[in-house]
């Protein structure tokens, strides 16, 4: 690990002010620190935002679940309110990594990193999430831009994520047997306005499968997609799974 300056920000304003093109915000550090240890990343400044109280916590109001960006996966997994409002979301959090990761890793860190195989981005897409930053509100569909790429600007900090409570929803994944990241994860959510089928792990970035979403919006049943072919085009292929296998898994989990 290369030498860096460590800062513990007392509020969002200070954190933002300290940031530069050579800095990183630290919350759970579940990706940042291993990357630094492996020499894959190095920063001049590490700005810890974990001490900023207002970034953590869970709020349920009416049709929305709002989760602070530094809320840990374990808190989401164990929250009685979320279990009641969106059981698939707490189940997703319960399935991330291992107990150590769940007790440190945060929802904001996960979506800011936008790992193509991360679980949370699919929840954001499927649950029509709005990402609140210190500057603006961003719709999930516009937030995830590409592999490890988001629409966050330099110095911009995610404050919370606001999920719409669906009528029905489910998240299924086939974890990479080694890393336990999703080889394919499919989040299906039925809202009054229609159905979202969000897919993670399969391509370079999470996406909403419009075709499957449309079909299920018309008829919300497993049989509805029986004759739908999922194209393997654009899907990842690696030592763990081919594009064809991933395409199959999208359908199996949908």
């Amino acid at each position, binding site marked *: 690990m290369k030498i860096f300056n460590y800062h513990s920000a007392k509020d969002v304003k200070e954190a933002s002010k300290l940031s530069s093109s050579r800095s990183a915000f630290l919350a759970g550090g579940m990706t940042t620190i291993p990357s630094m240890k492996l020499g894959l990343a190095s920063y001049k400044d590490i700005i810890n935002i974990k001490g900023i109280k207002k970034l953590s916590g869970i709020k349920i109001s009416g049709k929305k679940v709002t989760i602070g960006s530094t809320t840990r996966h374990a808190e989401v997994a164990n929250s009685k309110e979320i279990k009641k409002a969106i059981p698939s979301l707490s189940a997703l959090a319960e399935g991330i990594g291992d107990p150590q990761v769940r007790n440190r890793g945060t929802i904001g860190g996960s979506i800011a990193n936008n790992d193509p195989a991360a679980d949370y981005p699919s929840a954001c897409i499927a649950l029509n999430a709005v990402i609140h930053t210190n500057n603006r509100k961003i719709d999930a569909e516009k937030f995830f831009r590409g592999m490890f790429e988001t629409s966050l600007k330099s110095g911009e900090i995610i404050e919370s994520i606001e999920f719409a409570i669906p009528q029905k929803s489910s998240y299924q994944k086939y974890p990479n047997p*080694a*890393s336990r990241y999703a080889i394919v994860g499919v989040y299906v959510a039925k809202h009054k306005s229609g159905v979202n089928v969000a897919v993670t792990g399969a391509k370079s970035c999470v996406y909403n499968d419009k075709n499957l979403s449309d079909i299920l919006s018309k008829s919300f049943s497993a049989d509805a997609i029986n004759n739908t072919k999922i194209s393997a085009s654009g899907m990842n292929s690696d030592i763990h799974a081919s594009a064809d296998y991933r395409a199959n898994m999208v359908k199996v989990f949908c």
Partner: protein
Amino acid sequence: MASLVGSRVERKEDKKLLTGRGKYTADVNFIHQTYAYFVRSPHARAEIKKVDISKASKAPGVVAVLTGADIANDKIGGLIAGWRIKSEDGSDMKVPAHPPLANESVNYVGDHVAVVIAESLDEARSAADLVKVDYKILKAVVKTKDAMDSEQIYKDIPKNMCFDWLLGDRAKVKEAFEKADKVIKIDIINNRLIPNAMEPRAANADYNPSTEEITLYTTSQNPHLARIIISAFNGVAPENKLRVIAPDVGGGFGSKIYPYAEEVVCSWAAKKIERPVKWVADRTESFLSDCHGRDHVTHAELAVKNDGTFLGFKNETIANIGAYASVFGTVTPTYLFGPCATGVYKMPAAYTNVKAVYTNTAPVDAYRGAGRPEATYTIETLVEKAARELGMDPAEIRMKNFPTEFPYQQTLVHSVDSGDYNAGLKKVMELGEYESFEKRKKESESRGKLRGIGFCTYFEACGIAPSPVVMMLGCGIGLWESAEVRFNPTGNVTVFTGSHSHGQGHDTTFAQIAADQLGVPIESIEIAHGDTDKGPFGYGTYGSRSLTVGGTAIVKACDKIVAKGKRVAAKMLEVNEDEVDFNNGEFVVAKSNKKKTIGEVAFACYLPGTYGEVKSPLPDGEEPGLKETSFFDPANFSFPAGSHICEVEVDQDTGETKVVKYTAVDDFGTIINPLIVEGQVHGGLAQGIGQALYENCHYDNSGQLITASYMDYTMPRADNFTDFNLGFTCTPATSNPLGTKGCGEAGAIAAPPAVMNAVIDAIGTEISMPATAEKVWTACNKKNKNSEAA
């Protein structure tokens, strides 16, 4: 006192190990400590044009930067291949030079090029980035199967072939195959594995310029072997000036049997800079540079009669030994593999031919089971296929070919002293509820899952080994074991063993043995190992040998203690020696109440005379003290055997395969501590099931290791397994007085074929290891398409 042998004594070492009080090599720090970081080749194969250390040498904190040129100048010898194999044509195996720091070429990703030594690890690592190596990149040879037809890696080694070895009689096999009703054939791959000991390798060498002594702490299964190699072959220091200590070691599985480049370099460098040099591998370095395991491509054939009788066996194997011939890299695919390839069965004619090839991958050496898992996978998948093709029950075909008279001389090499294969198979079928399998299969089907069952009946040759035999076969060392039993004057005991515990539980098992032999409470016995300055020379721990060879040495040393004790007790009790019996820690005179405890006798041995109340004159000519040493060389290997049944469930939609029932019945002869033995079986099964379903080392075509972290290398976890149902049968070994047979490797040997036979049974088509979800899904699809087409 009740006998401790056979009881479930809790592991004495666990309190220390589970509470973080173990002392590992990385925990050791000397004053004036420096830290080493190795510059490793990023290329699988390249010529080294130039190594420029000028910038690195001036970097902050750097103490020294040493290269292959330095090590060559100091005439430090290369790493060795410890077992000489001859080819079928009588020629010697071909071995490339393996300098501890590469001088002319690098031959795998991770190969050692230079070492940077600095005041801190961070400084060493940062400076390592400044070492500029000018490489001429060459085309790498990666695939086992193609190695003989690829670019030649070493000038003097045509076809990249180390040797072309034959065991058995081709003519007799040909004859046997001509008489066959049917010939069953398989083409299989034994997938390459990375050992992944919990503790990464490490070394810390300290040099004392006034005494010219080097003390090397290292993660070794075998400190005595490390000392003799670093001394006699690498020439770093004379044996009397080199002390090797292997303190607590966190697992080895074979990968820590022998010294690597790092230990040699740290010892040499410590002497050169006159400061202690410490190196601790990070996990990526472990993946890259620990010796790997397995990696065979095999074609095998079995000649059978229609009634299932085996007539002959052929085995043509290509074994990848990596870029260099490692210490046991050449024996693993030959004498540890070939003799076991006919399995437990009566096999009138057989041969095994192994072509060992060099590739631009990490060296391959012994890994839990070493050769025997490869052998067992070959014969056991072949036998199960024979059963399918002949329409026989997999148990029936096995029983038909079991030998029943022991000792049984196998066709190839081994004379198996004892066993009862029928008893084991019957017991596992009962424990594993073989009769009701169809019911469970239907239940799985009702949930949309495929269920399959697979057998494995194995034997293995371990407890290595009789020195005259292994030396005749090309081994450069003997393989006996030593023990020293030292009574302290106050009656407690230290037992030194030349074997080494790195998870096996010797502190407990060996103490049980000594407690029974000497009649001393187990709490009064310490087991010492892992320091060449403390106990006598020994050959370490691997090949399931510690108990059968090392444990026996302890028994023999205890016998000598008792023999001396009788002489001394007789004198103390004023009777003749032949009137004294030894029972439960007491020397007693028959038909009298005269007796002395062994503690009293020990005390007398240390105070041989009269002093106040003490009256303990020793017999004339008897030396004072009570300490005895024994060196034990067994007359034969030990031959554990067993029968395992695995049931798997396959999800056809995802291909996901789960072991849902696993039953193992093993014959390890006499069991000293069932708790520890069960733990050994569990660990072995986890590794065996891991190989069958999850683990796979993958190099890409350019020789880059893709599975170089836990993100890509699937280490199985607890949730990948089901409960293991274990049972035991017992036919004591005749080659050691305890009657024990090795148990450490059995699970890793038996599980892969049991699991794969179950997978093949479930999906109805052959598939190679590891049976990953995608592979199983693809195989199911292909089969479904074929049956639709038909």
